[in-house]
């Protein structure tokens, strides 16, 4: 039982890690209907830029600020160079454009900072919480708890931003209906730029957390693959969906690997989340919190 709990808690906490990346996808999809495959590359680029500036001698906050600035510039340029000329193209074209963007970002990041794998230290030890360990023999990592805290903070910030600021309200209007938002004078392109900048910020946070966990290497781009099942489960357009989806995917993935994996030889967490999300979609095709879509002829 206590082992089950440990697996469950660990799974929930690593689910939060997936949510970080999924959040970036949701933000952009919500505001512009673009399925931004470059989110993984953005996570990588953000973390690499941060570490790169640190290596050049910048202190933590300055490096964070500079990396954020780079991500904002990247977002604005993407809007200007890639998205604006592609307005009104079918979603698949935009999707492919973001894959092209993935190559550009990866090349730029690795070309600028080099291919070396780096460590990233946030000062939080990735160790089990001692008193909990002693009392119940359940290991819960401090770092994972820290990550969950950051996630909660991030979601609260985003919720406040969406709810109480002018820009946030405009964002929601755009997400709801592009045409209607345009017709009441909301500057669509400014909104998009802001969304890409915010997504860049989310990528930076995700990059820092994942980078501190596994090191800053090209494989940070693979975090996107962990986020996709979270997305379909939670719905492409829902921020709470990204969090809840992450929790569900994280915990079931771990439980499945531990309890079912041994019967088929293990290593099933490459596909299990996808199959899970798929099974779920068969019941609810728009995801957990996705908008109900009514087909009309």
């Amino acid at each position, binding site marked *: 039982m206590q*082992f089950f709990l*440990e*697996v469950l808690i*660990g*799974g929930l906490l*690593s689910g939060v*890690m997936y949510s970080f990346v999924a959040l970036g996808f949701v933000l952009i999809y919500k505001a512009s209907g673009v399925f931004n495959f470059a989110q993984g590359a953005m996570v990588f680029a953000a973390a690499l830029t941060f570490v790169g500036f640190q290596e050049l001698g910048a202190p933590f906050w300055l490096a964070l600020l500079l990396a954020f600035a780079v991500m904002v510039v990247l977002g604005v340029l993407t809007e200007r160079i890639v998205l604006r000329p592609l307005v009104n193209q079918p979603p698949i074209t935009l999707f492919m454009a973001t894959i092209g963007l993935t190559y550009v970002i*990866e*090349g730029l990041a*690795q070309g600028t900072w*080099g*291919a*070396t*794998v*780096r*460590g*990233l*230290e946030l000062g939080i030890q*990735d*160790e*089990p919480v001692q008193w909990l360990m002693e009392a119940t023999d359940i*290991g819960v*990592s401090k*770092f994972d708890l820290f990550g969950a805290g950051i996630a909660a903070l991030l979601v609260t910030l985003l919720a406040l931003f969406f709810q109480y600021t002018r820009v946030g309200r405009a964002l929601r209007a755009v997400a709801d209906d592009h045409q209607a938002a345009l017709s009441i004078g909301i500057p669509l392109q400014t909104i998009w730029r802001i969304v890409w900048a915010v997504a860049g910020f989310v990528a930076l946070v995700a990059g820092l957390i*994942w980078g501190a*966990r*596994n*090191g*800053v*290497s*090209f*494989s940070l*781009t*693979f*975090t996107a693959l*962990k986020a996709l099942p979270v997305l379909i489960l939670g719905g492409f357009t829902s921020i709470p969906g990204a969090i809840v989806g992450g929790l569900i995917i994280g915990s079931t*993935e*771990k439980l499945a*690997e*531990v309890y079912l*994996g041994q019967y088929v*030889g*293990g*290593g*099933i*967490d*490459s*596909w299990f989340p996808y199959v899970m999300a798929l099974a779920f979609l068969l019941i609810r095709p728009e995801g957990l919190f996705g908008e109900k879509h009514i087909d009309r002829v």
Partner: protein
Amino acid sequence: MKMSKTLSTSLIAAGLLAGVAADAFAQAKEQFIGLPSYRVGAYAAGGSGVFGGWIDYMTLINERDGGIGGVKLTWEECETEYNNARGVECYERLKKKGSTGNSVFQPVSTGITYSVLDKVAQDKIPMVTIGYGRTDAVDGRVFPWVFPMITTYWSQATTMVKFIGSKEGGMEKLKGKKVVYLYHDSAFGKEGLGVIEKQAQKFGFTMVPLAVAHPGNEQQSQWLKIRQEKPDWVILWGWGVMNPTALKAAAKTGFPREKMVGVWWSGAEEDTVPAGDAAKGFIAAGFNVAGQNYPVVKAIQDNVYKKNKGNMEDKSRIGSVYYNRGVVHGIITVEAIRTAQAKFGAKPLSGDEMRWGFEHLSIDAKRLKELGAEGFMPDLKITCADHEGSGKVKYQQWDGKQWKVISDWIDADRDMVRPMIEESAAKYAKEKNITPRDCSKEG
């Protein structure tokens, strides 16, 4: 307008390609070596190190010795992105370059190795795969053109058990012990499985295999299982991000890193640095060691980097595990050319002549000392039947800053591995209708 633009660009591209295919211009006294390198993407960290070290060693030979027997080395890189199809294209593109064509192909990728396996025999270009590739190609009777040199995954697996045994205080102490085999869930990861299973039966320890799905950036469930199993040792058969993640997760579950032994693709700075303090104490195998304090690395510093002809942008990586592995690639290539020149004369060699050089390659302890590579790589002797030639592995431990050698060269249990190799090679020969060579008739 649009139409013509696309047309003209594609014409330019096509013209260029045609030009490349045709340029087999003769150049005197130059030995061409094609380098299918990869410097972008997930594998870039390893690729830039290995190919950097290799190129630096060849530059050293050109700069210091004026080539080999007066024959200068030339090379050209071709970016494969570690992708099989691109690797095949590179193989074909490099094949006809230089005065005698590409004389040796070393893809540093198991996937590309498989992709050109049949082609090298047809084209008569030897393929050397050091520490990766197809293990049963050690049987030179079936695979005359493939050289999985120094040591293979199977040899390595036996040395791992030997190493663990020595740490436990004797092989008989292994009885009743439990070893977790934590592996990258791929063809690469499964390579060691069979051998360690056999050893487990032989020495009476239990082995628990645990698979980690690619890329391996999430291993919580595996490590919870390890915590439950309470093994005495963990063998880490990992690649890339899987390694630092495993080290971090080990720290998280409180498993001692001193009881973790990694393969040579887990044992570079790239695998430990990202894990920070969690990596301290981790042990990994290697057929080359890290460090700058070897005469051969010093010679590269003096003759190449002082003249600003080095290949590495990040000079701190000189002497790293991957870099030194590249130097080993260079040494083996150059020594094979030397061996072949001794028979065929100091001239640019063809692939066929190079193959002879590889098959008769012998780098003994004395020669290693002359090369300034004593202790840097094991001595080896290739024969017609044995394309591995050494099987020796050293173990290094990460002290938090660098890799420290903690063992001497450990011989593989090659008597155990050999029948497995022959069986597998014979199966391949049967599938492919290959009649194995009779080695007693080879000169």
